[in-house]
């Protein structure tokens, strides 16, 4: 096993290095530094489930977010951090500050980008896809701050990083994080 593992990772590194180098020397490399750097990157999974593996998807909602004990989602209080839809929220729940589960509070604006997670609803026993989105242009909301790092990756994998203020390019200069909404976008079956 161990041998195998080391072998695997050596191969992987080799492959990535090669890709990198050929990439930069190739025709595409001439298009420009920017492209060359990113064009040949491995394409990225859509949502975290793909990376966690389906087996883990369920776990996402019961995995302990404290060192001591796991967390059991509930479907009674949408303004609590353990409400099932917030299974992967890192920030404030808009519903507590004048928005709802699916709309931004008045006066803030929707960020153009979102990140997706799948959450288990204990009420009907189904698992849904939630596309979290930031609402921007106001100071961080005061109520209902939640912190959940399940499946969160380092900053060099920005699409899965919690620390980035995702309010880039929102309209009318609204570039500060206010809160997050948790709309359901489909069933994860």
């Amino acid at each position, binding site marked *: 096993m161990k041998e195998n593992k080391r072998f695997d990772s050596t191969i992987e590194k080799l492959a990535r290095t090669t890709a990198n180098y050929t990439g930069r020397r190739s025709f595409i490399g001439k298009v420009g530094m920017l492209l060359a750097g990113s064009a040949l990157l491995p394409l990225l999974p859509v949502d975290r489930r793909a990376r966690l593996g389906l087996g883990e998807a369920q776990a996402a909602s019961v995995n302990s977010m404290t060192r001591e004990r796991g967390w059991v989602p509930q*479907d*009674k209080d*949408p303004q609590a951090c353990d409400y*099932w*839809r917030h299974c992967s929220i890192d920030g404030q729940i808009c519903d*507590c*500050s*004048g*928005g*709802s*589960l*699916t*709309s*931004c*509070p*008045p*006066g*803030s*604006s*929707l960020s153009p980008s979102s990140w997706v997670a799948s959450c288990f*609803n204990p*009420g*009907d026993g189904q698992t849904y896809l939630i*596309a979290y*989105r930031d*609402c921007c242009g*106001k*100071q961080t*909301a*005061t*109520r*209902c701050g939640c912190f959940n790092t399940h499946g969160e990756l380092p900053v060099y994998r920005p699409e899965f990083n919690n620390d980035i203020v995702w309010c880039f390019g929102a309209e009318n200069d609204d570039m500060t994080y*206010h809160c997050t*909404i948790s*709309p*359901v*976008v*489909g*069933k994860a079956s």
Partner: protein
Amino acid sequence: EDQKAVPKQLAAVGSLKIDNLSVAKAPPVDAKRFYVIDPGHFNMTSQTYVMGANDNKLQMHGLIDGGKLPHVMSSPKFVGMANTTYDRIAHGKRDDYVRLHDPQTLEAVADIDIPEIRFLTGLMERTASLSVDDKYMLIQQFSPSSGVGLVDLEAKKYVKTMPVPDCYHVFPAAKQNFFMHCRDGSLLQVTYDNQGNSKQKNTKVFHAENEYLHNNPYYSNSAGRLVWPTYEGKIFQAKLSDSGAEFLKPIEIFTDKEKKDKWGPGGWQPIAFHKERNEIYLLADQRAKWTHKLPSRFVVVADGTTGKRLRRIDLKHAIDSIAVTQDKNPTLIAASIEHKIIYTFDAIGGKQLASMDEMGKAPQIIVTMDK
């Protein structure tokens, strides 16, 4: 129609299309709408919570950002806000400006630059005010000299700083009048025109020097009713109109025995008034002298004319500020700065109706709808 009576939807099912995502609108302004200002203990930025007290519950409609120690003024048409910021966090160039926000979308509908005149104090509701017809904003200046800044909200421009003597607070009355309270114990009536020229006249002296009036009186722009408690619990009242000030008989809220038992008003915003019911609400407790700003646990309700004690409400929490909605079933709103909680009570029955926690850093002033 109003969907508030329905229990919160627990788990909307089905596919939601992205364009269904929206930015919420707060419901239209009604009598139960109110605002809570959180200056965060002299923080450089502040937050104002737009809230509602319908159906014996508490609704959070949204937040409005503000600068250091902002002034928030409510009108059915907009939420007015006078702000101060500095270009290098807490020093550097100071910028004062006025913003009007739509009461439903909370978006800024006007942003008016004004000179750097705002009187920065711990939050006081009445050191800036809208005119009675919501056409002007009046902002008190303290330094370098006493004055009141006139902002024309329709033309969206700053008109002028009108010099006034050493007087404080701004109470607007009809026909471009406003009143201020001067340190000699009289009111000053100021009549201004569109250019900011003013005529000024003093009323009689209505209170003695050692009757210290609290920083946050109750005043109704629409009714011109001024209700003003002293540190000891004596209530001075006046009806202000363009024709002058009519002072009512002062009321002693506490009997001599209660005073001996150390009853006295206290809190940051210790008084509220219900116009239709003609009831005075005073935040009070048994307290040592000079603790007039520390929180209290009771509200004493008295008749606005005779001063007759009607009832006493036990809030059961240490409360800093109170306000009362002006509708037929008034809600008493109470804020606890230390615990950062807003409570509501049935102003008549005295029962606690709802509470909301995590209200920022220091929810300090409650502004209700006047009309």
